């Protein structure tokens, strides 16, 4: 469905952020993209959706295709029309609009009032909490509620593929569970996902396949269940040693740095 072939992306014509990234996402799959801060995960998503242009960036090599159709360096709004929605990090809700108005804007391409109503009801059935908050101004919602609203807004466009960036960032554990429950329900309905997440345990809980990025490259990939058992992944992203102990973050960080230098 989505194919990135040897994609290179640069910012301001000089900063090479992606160095030949190749990713495949099949229909109905949830693919997780893991990696440390600065690895290039968010840039990968921005390169796919075209939002990289708003940060003076561009895809300078390789290709991105959705259902065989090239979408490399396409305008963001055109990419959405092709059926791909990007849920960005940073909870970019429309602060002055109510929850319902945010959802209606999410269905911008829907011209039929009945269809709009149907989609709203679908979102409310997935996330009843949004129904209760429908008349609340979005800027006054909690972080978790804003994240749910962003997912709901994406669902309003009825996309073929949702690419979602750090949905658990800054959320309490219970809220993370709620967000991932919604993603799981959407996956069960057949929605395809490309998920960028620092919370590797949560990501492996929903993903079918996973890629690991470092320094703008894919360094490891495989089925999610196997990746979750990989010693390096366990150590670097789940913080568990081969003996099953939890390692301190300080040790992991030190070891990773040493390994990267030696590598």
């Amino acid at each position, binding site marked *: 469905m989505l194919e990135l072939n040897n994609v290179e992306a640069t910012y301001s014509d000089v900063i090479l952020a992606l160095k030949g990234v190749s990713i495949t996402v099949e229909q109905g799959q949830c693919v997780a993209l893991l990696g440390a801060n600065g690895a290039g995960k968010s840039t990968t998503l921005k390169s796919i959706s075209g939002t990289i242009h708003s940060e003076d960036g561009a895809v300078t090599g390789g290709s991105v295709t959705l259902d065989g159709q090239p979408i490399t360096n396409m305008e963001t709004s055109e990419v*959405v029309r092709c059926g791909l929605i990007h849920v960005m990090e940073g909870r970019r809700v429309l602060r*002055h609009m109510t929850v319902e108005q945010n959802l209606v804007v999410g269905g911008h391409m829907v011209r039929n009032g009945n269809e709009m109503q149907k989609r709203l009801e679908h979102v409310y059935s997935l996330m009843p909490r949004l129904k209760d908050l429908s008349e609340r101004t979005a800027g006054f919602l909690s972080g978790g509620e804003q994240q749910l609203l962003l997912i709901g807004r994406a669902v309003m466009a009825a996309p073929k593929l949702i690419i979602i960036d750090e949905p658990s960032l800054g959320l309490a554990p219970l809220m993370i569970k709620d967000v991932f429950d919604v993603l799981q329900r959407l996956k069960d309905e057949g929605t395809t996902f490309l998920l960028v997440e620092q919370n590797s345990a949560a990501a492996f809980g929903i993903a079918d396949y996973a890629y690991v990025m470092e320094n703008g490259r894919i360094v490891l990939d495989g089925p999610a269940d196997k990746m979750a058992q990989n010693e390096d992944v366990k150590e670097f992203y789940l913080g568990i040693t081969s003996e099953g102990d939890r390692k301190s973050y300080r040790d992991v960080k030190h070891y990773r740095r040493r390994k990267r230098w030696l590598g």
Partner: protein
Amino acid sequence: MDPSGVFSVSYRQDRKLVRTKWQALFLLGFMALLYLAPFYASPRIVAIGNIMLISAVVAVGLQICTGYAGQINLGQAAFMGVGAYTAGLLAQKYQMSFLLTIPLSGLSAAAFGFLFGLTAARIKGFYLALTTIAAQFIFHFAVLNLPSSWMGGSNGVTVPAATLFGLKISSTNGLFYLNLVFATIMIAGAFGIVRSRFGRAFVAVRDDDVAAGIMGINVARTKATAFLIGAFYAGVGGALWAYMIRFVGVDQFTLFNSIFFIAMIIVGGMGSITGALIGVFIIRMIQEVIATVGPNIAEAVPFLGGDIVFASMNMFLGGVIAMFMILEPRGLMHRWNIIKSSYRIWPFPY
């Protein structure tokens, strides 16, 4: 406004403009008062009403462009000037009916505004403000420096009276109805625009243009459309102005006027059509009070001299606008919304 505990339960219900019987009655009563104004109000009040109606059309256009879509526009008076000149020239040289010249004036101003909308696709904020100021200078330069046979140069253009079925619309009352009918159509249209998917796209682009893009909104086209619509309104307002004053001159559409239009939407409240109307009413009322009181003061205190009194009056107007910015920066509509919310949840404090 629905009372506490009553919520919209469908998308259609949520989109309704008039939600209660009282709102409908109030609207009908207000419209009746307006349409009957020439029968009970003095000619001076009707003349002030004319200026307010024209200003309302222009300010509502600016509200759509700046208040809703977030595109700073300091060239609204220039767009109004383009409309006024178009109407004046078409009426004078081609004897066209006002039913044709007014929409054509809107279209010519919209085309001029669209050019600046294209620049808004790439720049924003302070830079966009500077670009729209350029609209003022381009307009002035074109009128004053192109051959005077084209647009009258510094002599301006004399505009024949609007006529309908052979009847001249030149009296204050006749012009009031002309302005009122067009203002009603344009303002009703504005309410329709801001409630449509275009209106929602404008607000989305204003609040976060990147987020708007990822919802499928074409940001560049939306910004250009906002300018186009805003300038169309200014053009129609300019044409109405031309038929009212019966003379169009370049000094009627200065940067100073553009700033007054901005002041109107700030005082009324950004992002609200009703706010723009309230802002027009307040600023024009203050201007009229100053124009009435100023000569009386100058006469009563002759040693001050007329110049000092008139300068003080303008300072007073500036002071009032500054006070609004300090005390009510989000405009009167924001205060009204707070009052409405308090009423809705009464007797609970929050």
